[in-house]
């Protein structure tokens, strides 16, 4: 009777989880390139921030374009405590989560007052204000000049910055890869657990019908504030890890941070809104995309008949219609629109549909899968 309480209900899910763990363990053993490691660390960072955003948007229905602000806050807090003050890893991680979480909690009350469209703009405002503060709070952030994150500790039980297991020496990038994906794994487990228990159900109830949720005894306000804090904290931790990857932080301009926020949204849209693994799937799909374009650009240079030019420019100097960067951006925008239009449940939904259709072919029972849009933002 309580079989449906298991985290991984089907054999397929269990195999999938085992494969995922194996992939994390094996990848650095197979790939030594700092570049690809860096790409996958970045994907892990996106997965972590996306996981938080999915909790907020996918499960609670709170629209936000502010995720980049929390990532920034986390990154700078990590740099301040981890690099400047030399705190050990767990402490700077906690600080990054706490700082971003507190800002999230402070935004929460706005979410009570503003819904849907207004909330989106308030979250955009958060990005503008955060960038402005970081640009100007020199003593904390280094202002416009940015801040070095050199010397940040990656050590807890083992030193991920100088990892050596069974005599196998790993590069710092490989160590950070392990650290990042361990964190992503733990966060995924935590989110999955929250979702299948009382607090997670409450969030979904708020998403589907907040007035009814209140009426059955769910403290909507309190839960919204908590979920903003949680989502912020996860983004903050993602920011801290990204700071360790990049080694240098600048606040950039608000518009570019807004683009980053959109990227986080795209990660969950493409992966699967309101699904636990959606953020990971989306991040692994979208994260390496520009790099793949860059890597395989020579394969895409089929000639366009009229102009007789390769489609892509390998560099800014060679001829072509568009640069690799522009191509991957345009691909990204098209993916976002196409997924929203034709596959709003993302890759995870696509997978479920495929599995369902395969099953149907085996046993001719009419078991049309659920096809309800999971994000139900209050209008």
């Amino acid at each position, binding site marked *: 009777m309580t079989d449906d309480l298991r985290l991984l209900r089907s054999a397929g899910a269990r195999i999938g989880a085992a494969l995922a763990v194996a992939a994390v363990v094996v990848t650095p053993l197979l790939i030594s390139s700092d570049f690809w490691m860096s790409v996958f660390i970045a994907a892990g960072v996106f997965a972590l921030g996306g996981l938080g955003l999915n909790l907020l948007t996918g499960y609670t229905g709170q629209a936000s374009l502010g995720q980049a602000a929390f990532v920034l806050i986390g990154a700078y807090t990590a740099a301040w405590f981890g690099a400047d003050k030399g705190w050990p890893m767990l402490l700077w991680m906690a600080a990054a989560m706490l700082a971003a979480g507190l800002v999230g909690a402070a935004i929460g009350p706005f979410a009570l007052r503003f819904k849907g469209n207004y909330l989106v703009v308030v979250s955009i405002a958060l990005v503008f204000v955060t960038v402005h503060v970081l640009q100007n709070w020199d003593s904390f952030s280094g202002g416009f*000049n940015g801040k*070095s994150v050199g010397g940040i500790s990656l050590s807890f039980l083992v030193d991920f910055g100088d990892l050596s297991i069974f005599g196998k*020496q790993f590069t710092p990038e490989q160590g950070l890869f392990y650290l990042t994906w361990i964190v992503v794994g733990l966060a995924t487990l935590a989110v999955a657990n929250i979702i299948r228990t009382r607090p997670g159900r409450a969030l979904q109830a708020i998403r589907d019908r907040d007035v009814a949720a209140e009426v059955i005894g769910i403290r909507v306000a309190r839960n919204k504030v908590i979920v903003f804090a949680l989502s912020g904290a996860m983004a903050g931790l993602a920011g801290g890890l990204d700071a360790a990857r*990049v080694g*240098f932080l*600048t606040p950039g301009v608000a518009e570019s941070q807004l683009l980053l926020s959109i990227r986080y949204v795209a990660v969950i849209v493409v992966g699967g809104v309101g699904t636990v693994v959606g953020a990971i799937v989306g991040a692994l799909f979208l994260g390496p995309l520009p790099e793949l374009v860059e890597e395989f650009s020579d394969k895409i240079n089929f000639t366009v008949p009229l102009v007789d030019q390769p489609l892509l420019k390998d560099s*800014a100097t060679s001829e072509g219609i568009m640069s690799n960067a522009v191509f991957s951006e345009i691909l990204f925008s098209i993916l976002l629109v196409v997924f929203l239009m034709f596959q709003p449940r993302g890759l995870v939904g696509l997978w479920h549909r495929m599995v369902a259709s395969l099953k149907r072919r085996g046993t001719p029972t009419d078991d049309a899968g659920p096809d309800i849009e999971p994000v139900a933002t209050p209008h």
Partner: protein
Amino acid sequence: MTKKLWLVSALLLTFALFAAACGSSDDSGDSAGSDTTEPTDGSDTTAPTDGTEPADSGSDATVAPDDGSVEPAGDPEPAPGFDGETIKLGYLTDESGPLAILGVPLTTGSQIYWDYVNEELGGVGGRYQVELATGDTKDDPSSAVQEYQRLKDDSVLFAQILSTPPTQAVLEFLKEDNIVGVPGSLAGTWANEAVLMPNGAAYEYEMINIADWFVNDSGLGGVDTVQCVVSVNDLYGEVGLDGLEYAAGELGFELTEKRTMNRNDTDFAATVSALDQAGCEAVYAITVPREQSTMMAEAATQGFDPIWLGALPSYLSLLAGPNFEKFYVALDNPDFNDTSVPGMVDFLERFETYKPDSGAEPNSFFFSGYYQQIAVHALLEKAVELGDLSREGIANAMTQLGEVETDGLTAENYVYGAPEDRIPTSASRIFVYDPDNPPNLLTELALLDSELNDGYELGG
């Protein structure tokens, strides 16, 4: 990991000692530094490396000794970015971000230079063809680091890293991997980094030069002129302002109104009004080109018509407009029509030959991308001569490079070496906007190296 760190620090130490040894024999050189001699043939002073410092007893510090003679030291071994035939150079530039306006022509200028080397000289050392690989930083540290990681194992060095924040971000990695990088920006602090190979006069010197010129030589104003400044909010704006404030203090004038601006600003109504209301007669512009031109257009609409005194990045050769004839700028490069400068004649000729099909006119950004590669070329030639194109070999070559001749393309030649041994250029040419002098629409007024520069400490 630790082994790598040891190796790098041992190497750096070796170079430092090396440079110290060279420097001591060369101490008399002043900032005009026209003697090309010492560093190149002083290179056989390898003795101190072993003797003085116990710390470098470890491993690979021995790369230094095998460069002893002027004779070619044999063909360089394949190394990251060098397969024995082709030398690959990494370019971290902005192809699609806010600085694409600079990044694209800069890289094109570089490409023109290497096309010339490949076609006409047969490549570096007459043998090795040079290829460019670009990574798009979008002027963002995160992308810059990612692109750095992508290119680093396939580049002997980074021949251009555009803009300050990406350079700062990549610097730690350059140090760790001991790869030489050429910043595409002129912040004076770069001169202090062993792995960086700056070009041209630092922004600080540019501002000191133009202030000195304006107050003392221009005949346009003096210390009593109401002078103001607009600077961009980043390291470039900051160091430029630092140089300017130093100059103001030394020359005895006030900066009446100080404004800042952000990259990507589009509305300058308030800035222009404030400058106008403060009665500014001359405005120093430590700004970026697109925004500068927008600000000047706004000034025109408000009927505000000061003298503008710009640093290199504030200027774009496309400038044209009703109130631009009072625009003065400190640049390194000579007048494009000055046939007395041999390097310029070459540049224009090579530009015609190798320019992209789109049919662009030569301008300062193509030019900057071009002339920056002269030093890179000299460095590669040196490394080939020393028979080592590995990272260590190139870093080593830089300590021995000495003065690089630019055939008059810079106001002064840069003398490379270990950081404390370098003699950065500090001279600038002052130009005025001149619509009748295409293609660059500038006419040279002066070439000067302000005396104040000697008293100014870069990165201080």
